């Protein structure tokens, strides 16, 4: 297709029609990036010394809530434990975790701290994986039921990955899991409000 002006002519102003203006105004001005990006950015800034690092730093935004914003250590511990439990066993759903290895790992990580809590989280993780295994055995009569089961399972996985990324923003496995979720959520959004897959905790 050729332009209808002679080369070198001063271009004529092209004003927007009312419909074009309206359509441009209706375009979204904001878009949330993946959660991973914030953690990645903060980690880089810490590495560069532009943000303080160490146990005393505040993790949550003060505007998030009126509650104390410091993240208690046991929440991180719980996240580690949940992560180990989910991912150690998650690759072979249908088997009840490599419980011995996981328990050993937890003993090492939490020795001298709250081993009871860690053990509790590990047990919960094992129960979760066992429940998934049982779920996979069920012969669903309605396709919608299996869809809901999948949604619940994925939501738990997503929540666990979100906790892990706070501890290890550069972990490639977690990054790929979250990127997969983000891509899926975007596809769902593109399909409209009815297409939303994840239910956030």
């Amino acid at each position, binding site marked *: *297709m*050729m*332009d*209808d*002006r002679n*080369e070198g002519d*001063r*271009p*004529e*102003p*092209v004003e*927007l*029609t009312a*419909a*074009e203006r*309206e*359509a*441009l105004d209706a*375009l*979204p*001005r*904001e*878009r*949330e*990036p*993946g959660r991973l*990006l*914030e953690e*990645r*950015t*903060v980690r*880089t*800034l*810490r590495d*560069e*010394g*532009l*943000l*303080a690092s160490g146990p005393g*730093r*505040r*993790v*949550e*935004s*003060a*505007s998030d809530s009126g509650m104390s*914003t410091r993240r208690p250590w046991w929440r991180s511990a719980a996240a580690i434990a949940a992560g180990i439990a989910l991912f150690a066993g998650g690759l072979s759903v249908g088997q009840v975790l490599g419980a011995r290895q996981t328990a050993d790992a937890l003993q090492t990580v939490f020795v001298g701290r709250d081993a009871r809590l860690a053990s509790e989280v590990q047990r919960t993780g094992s129960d979760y994986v066992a429940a998934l295994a049982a779920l996979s055995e069920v012969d669903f009569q309605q396709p919608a039921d299996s869809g809901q089961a999948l949604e619940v399972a994925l939501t738990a996985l997503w929540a666990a990955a979100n906790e892990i990324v706070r501890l290890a923003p550069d972990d490639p496995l977690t990054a790929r899991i979250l990127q997969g979720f983000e891509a899926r959520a*975007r596809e769902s959004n593109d399909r409209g409000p009815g297409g939303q897959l994840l239910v956030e905790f």
Partner: protein
Amino acid sequence: MRAQAVVPTSDRILAERIVGARDESAFRELYRRHTPRLHQFVLRIMGGDEPEAEDVVQDTWIRASRNLGDFRWESKFETWLTGIGLNLCRNRLRSSGRWTDLPELSLAAGQVEHREDRVDLERAISLLPAGFRAVLVLHDIEGFKHTEIAEQLGVTEGTSKSQLWSARRAMRRMLNPAGSEQGDVT
């Protein structure tokens, strides 16, 4: 008891906490306040490439954090951040051969390559040559004036105007390839 209005901490105070105390919570607050807008802007300038846009957003914050102490607050923080993001987009597009400096960009509006019969507005914008796209996004979506665009892109005001008109014409033809100048917008 009277309800107390929650006043968000100003960008400047947050920035001072970041520079002075390397305060992570202040950074996170500033980041969460401005990133959705920055991300959408960068995504459009990069032609819709999400992973690349996220890399640019991260680099923008890193560069902004390095230079935060030198920012003189003569413009809005958001405008400054957008300018950094735009520069980084331009560098990235240029290094991969996707950006032509505006004075050299004399592509006739109708010559924009596209194979679809009809595209929606967001897609039409993403299909524009990067230089056209930048001017159109800055002017028609972000509301920058030609003087500001000229300063950001290092061109004259006249160049900014002529590129905007070419961009609009190209966009219109993509939206309505049948040939009507007054294209329908979807």
